[in-house]
C-alpha cells in the first residue's frame, strides 16, 4: 500500500466521500464530529508516500497524482492544520445553525487545497485549484452578516478573475506542449522560448499572485480572512493562500535563469511585504492585522521565488515551500490563538495567551530559535547580497512592528468572565499546532536548506535574525503614539476606490437593461434582422 499511491487517492477521495455521505441525513447530522478525520489520509500520505505517483486515468486523460519533496512538505503541514482546525471546528461550531453546511464547504475546500499539492497534470491542477478557490466562498460568507456577504462578494469576484487569468495562462502553456492534458512539468519545460512565454508567465503571476494576495490584488484577503469563523480563518490564511505559492512554484520555470521576471517578482513581493505591514499597522482588529500580516508574508514568499528565479537557483522550490510551511503553521496557530484569547479571562491571560502568542508572532519576524529564524536563514542565499537582501531583512523589522501591534490589539479580546478558560480540547489542539510550528521546521531544516542545524544557532546567524527584531521593537517604541493617532485604513484598503465605482457599475447595468428592453421591441428587433441579413449577404458577396 505504501508504494502504490493509494493514500494520495484517499487524500482526495476520503473528504469527497464524506461529502457524498452527507446525502444521508443521519450522517449529515453528525458530520461535524467526523471533520477532523477528513485530513488524516493527507497526513499519512505526506509521511509515507513521498516520491510516489499514481496515474488515475491513462493517456489521453493523464489524470496523475504525484508527491514530490515540495508537495510532501506542504501537504503534511496543510493536513496537520486542516485536521487540527477541523477538530477545533467540531467543537466550536457544534450546535450552531448551518453547521452541516459549514462542514460541506469545509470538506470541499479541503479537498481542493490538499489537492493542489499532489496533482501532477494541468487539468487536475485547475480542477482542485478551482475547487479550493470557489468552495472557500462558503467559508468566507458563512456568517451571513452584511460584512460577510460583502467579503464573500469581493472574494468571489476576485477568485473568478484569478481563475480566468490562470485558465488562459494554462491554455497558453498547453499550446506550447501539444497533446491533450500534459503533465505540469512537461508543459513548463516547453515554455521557455515559446512565442507565448511572456503573456503566459505574466498571467500566471497575476493569477497565482491574486491567490497569494500580492499588491494590488490583495484587496479580498483582509476582508475575507477575518470574517470567517476562527477555524476557517486559520485554514484560509494558513493553507488556502498556499495554493498560490504552489502554483508559482509549479508553473514558473524556476530553474532557468530569467532575471527580468525574477526581479519583477522580487520587486512585487517586497512591495507587498512592506505594504502589508504599513496598512496592517493602522488596523484595529486582531484578525484583520493577521490577514495583513499574511499579505506581507506572502510578499516575502513571492520575493523568495523571484530571487531564485533570477539566478535559476536549483532549490528555489523547496526553499520557498519551506518558508511557506513555516508561515502555514504559525499563521494557523495564531488564528486559532485569537479564538483562544477570546475565550480566556484576565486571570489566565499571560500564561495561556500572551506568552505563546508572542512567540508565534515573533516567529513570523524571524525570532531566533523559532521556525521563522530557520526559514529566513534557509532562504537568505536566494536574495544574494544586494539591496533585496537588505530589504528582506527590513521587512522582518516591519513584521516585528506589525506583530507587536497585533499583540497590543489582542489584549482587547478577552472573556468577560475573569476566570474564564477555553474548553480544554481547544487548548490542546491549539497547542499541537503551535508546537508543530516550532518542531516541524527544525526537523526539516537540515534536509531542505543544506545547512547543518548548528548553523542556525551560530552567533552571526543569531545576530542576523535578531537585529531586525530589535530594530522593529525600537521603531515600535518610537512610533507608538504616532501610529495610534493614524486614521484607520478601511479593510481591504484600495477596495474602497472600487466601492466608489459601484454606482457607475449599477448605472452601466441598468443602461444595459434599458438597451435590452429597446432591442426586444418588435420593430427594433425585426429591423435588426433585416439589417443583419443585408449586411451578411453583402459580406458574403463582397467581403472576400
Amino acid at each position: 500500500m505504501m508504494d502504490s499511491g493509494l493514500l494520495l487517492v484517499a487524500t482526495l477521495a476520503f473528504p469527497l466521500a464524506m461529502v457524498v455521505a452527507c446525502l444521508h441525513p443521519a450522517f449529515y447530522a453528525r458530520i461535524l464530529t467526523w471533520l477532523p478525520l477528513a485530513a488524516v489520509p493527507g497526513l499519512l500520505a505526506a509521511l509515507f508516500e513521498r516520491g510516489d505517483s499514481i496515474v488515475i486515468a491513462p493517456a489521453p486523460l493523464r489524470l496523475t497524482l504525484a508527491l514530490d519533496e515540495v508537495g510532501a512538505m506542504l501537504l503534511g503541514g496543510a493536513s496537520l492544520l486542516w485536521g487540527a482546525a477541523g477538530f477545533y471546528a467540531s467543537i466550536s461550531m457544534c450546535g450552531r445553525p448551518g453547521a452541516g453546511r459549514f462542514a460541506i464547504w469545509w470538506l470541499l475546500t479541503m479537498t481542493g487545497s490538499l489537492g493542489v499539492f499532489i496533482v501532477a497534470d494541468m487539468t487536475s491542477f485547475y480542477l482542485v485549484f478551482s475547487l479550493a478557490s470557489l468552495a472557500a466562498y462558503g467559508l468566507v460568507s458563512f456568517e451571513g452578516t452584511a460584512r460577510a456577504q460583502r467579503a464573500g462578494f469581493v472574494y468571489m469576484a476576485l477568485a473568478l478573475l484569478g481563475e480566468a487569468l490562470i485558465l488562459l495562462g494554462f491554455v497558453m502553456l498547453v499550446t506550447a506542449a501539444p497533446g491533450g492534458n500534459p503533465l505540469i512539468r512537461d508543459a513548463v519545460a516547453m515554455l521557455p522560448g515559446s512565442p507565448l512565454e511572456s503573456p503566459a508567465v505574466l498571467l500566471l503571476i497575476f493569477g497565482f499572485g491574486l491567490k497569494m494576495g500580492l499588491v494590488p490584488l490583495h484587496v479580498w484577503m483582509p476582508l475575507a480572512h477575518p470574517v470567517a469563523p476562527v477555524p476557517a480563518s486559520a485554514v484560509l490564511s494558513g493553507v488556502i493562500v498556499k495554493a498560490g505559492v504552489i502554483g508559482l512554484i509549479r508553473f514558473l520555470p524556476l530553474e532557468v535563469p530569467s532575471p527580468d521576471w525574477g526581479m519583477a517578482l522580487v520587486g512585487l513581493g517586497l512591495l507587498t511585504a512592506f505594504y502589508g505591514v504599513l496598512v496592517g499597522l493602522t488596523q484595529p482588529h486582531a484578525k484583520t492585522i493577521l490577514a495583513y500580516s499574511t499579505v506581507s508574508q506572502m510578499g516575502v514568499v513571492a520575493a523568495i521565488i523571484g530571487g531564485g528565479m533570477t539566478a535559476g537557483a536549483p532549490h528555489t522550490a523547496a526553499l520557498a515551500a519551506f518558508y511557506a510551511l513555516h508561515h502555514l503553521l504559525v499563521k494557523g496557530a495564531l488564528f486559532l490563538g485569537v479564538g483562544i484569547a477570546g475565550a480566556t479571562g484576565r486571570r489566565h491571560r499571560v500564561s495561556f495567551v500572551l506568552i505563546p502568542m508572542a512567540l508565534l508572532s515573533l516567529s513570523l519576524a524571524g525570532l531566533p530559535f523559532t521556525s521563522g529564524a530557520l526559514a529566513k536563514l534557509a532562504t537568505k542565499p536566494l536574495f544574494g547580497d544586494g539591496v533585496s537582501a537588505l530589504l528582506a531583512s527590513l521587512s522582518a523589522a516591519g513584521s516585528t512592528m506589525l506583530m507587536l501591534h497585533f499583540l497590543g490589539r489582542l489584549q482587547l479580546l478577552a472573556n468577560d468572565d475573569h476566570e474564564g478558560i477555553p474548553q480544554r480540547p481547544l487548548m490542546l489542539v491549539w497547542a499541537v499546532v503551535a508546537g508543530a510550528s516550532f518542531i516541524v521546521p527544525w526537523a526539516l531544516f537540515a534536509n531542505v536548506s543544506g545547512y547543518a542545524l548548528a548553523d542556525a544557532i551560530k552567533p552571526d546567524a543569531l545576530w542576523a535574525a535578531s537585529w531586525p527584531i530589535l530594530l522593529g521593537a525600537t521603531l515600535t517604541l518610537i512610533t507608538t503614539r504616532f501610529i495610534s493617532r493614524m486614521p484607520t485604513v478601511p479593510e481591504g484598503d484600495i477596495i474602497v476606490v472600487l466601492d466608489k465605482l459601484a454606482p457607475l457599475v449599477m448605472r452601466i447595468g441598468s443602461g444595459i437593461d434599458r438597451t435590452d428592453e429597446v432591442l426586444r421591441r418588435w420593430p427594433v428587433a425585426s429591423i435588426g434582422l433585416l439589417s443583419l441579413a443585408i449586411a451578411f449577404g453583402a459580406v458574403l458577396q463582397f467581403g472576400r
Partner: protein
Amino acid sequence: MTLLPDLALVLLILTAAVWTVAVRDRRDAVIGFIVVGLLLSLAWVRLNAVDVALTEAAIGGGATGLLLLRACARLVPRPAESVLPHPAMRILTVLLCSAIAAGLAAIVLMPVEPPATLAPEAAASMGELGLGNPITVVLLAYRALDTLLEKVVLVLALIGVWTLTPDQFWGGAPASLRAQQSSGALTLLAQVLPPVGVVIGVYLIWNGADHPGGTFQGGTVLAAMWLLVMMADLREPPEIRLHSLRLLVILGPVVFLVAGFAGFWIANGFLSYPPAFAKPIIVIVEAALALSIAVILGMLVAGPAARAPR
C-alpha cells in the same frame, strides 16, 4: 407574346398588396389580402402552375381569407389601429425592405443559363408510376416525406390551436361560425351548394392523379362546403373530444404512414410503391388525406373550443 397583361396583373397585385398593408381598417386589409390572393391565382396560371393556382385560390385566398375574416369579426373593434411608429423608423424600414427586394430583383434579373431545373429528371421517372400529373408525382412519390411531414404539421397546428382552449371547455365545441347577419340567401346556398361542392371536391381529388387538381384543392373544397354549412347555422361545429372527429383528422396521415411502411414489404422500402399498384395506392392515400385536410381545415377555421362539452 406581349408582356402587357402580365405587367398589368403585377401592377394590380402590388397595388392591392400596398393597400392591404397601408389601409387603416383591418377588415379592409383582410379584403385586400383576399383580393391579392385571387390575383395571385391568376399569376400562378400565367406561371404555368395551374395546380398552384388552384391551391392558392382555395387555401391562400379562400381558407386563409375566411380565417382572417372570422378573426376580424371576433376582435374587439378599436377606433384607431394604434400609434404609428416614428417616421425615422418607417424610413429606415422602407430602405431596408427595398434593399432586400433589390437584392432579390437583381438575382431575378440575372437568370442562369441554361435554366436550372429538375424537370427532365422528374419526367424520366414518371413512367414508372403511371400517373399523369407531375405535381402529384412529386408530392406523393419523389418528395412524399415532405408531404407526409406537412400533414403532421397540420395535425400539430390543430393541436396547437386546441391548446388555447380554456381548461373548463376542453373537449367541447368551438364557437359557432354563424355569420353575423344570417341571411336566407346564405342558408339557401348552404343547402344547395354542398352536394355540388362535394362532387367537385371528389372530382378534384380523383382527377389530381392525372390532371391539375389534387388532395389540397379537393380537401379545401370539401372544407369550404362544411364551413358553409356551419356558417349558415345548419350545423354546429363538432365537439373536439369526438372520437370520430379525431379519427378523421388522423385518417390521412395514418393511411399515408401505413402505405409508407408497407413499402418495406411490398416494394423497395419506406414510401416506395410497387409499380403495378402505385396509382391505386396513391389515389387511396390522396383520398384519405383529402378527407383529413377537409376536417382539419374546417376545425382550424373554427378555432379552439369555446363551450363546455355536453
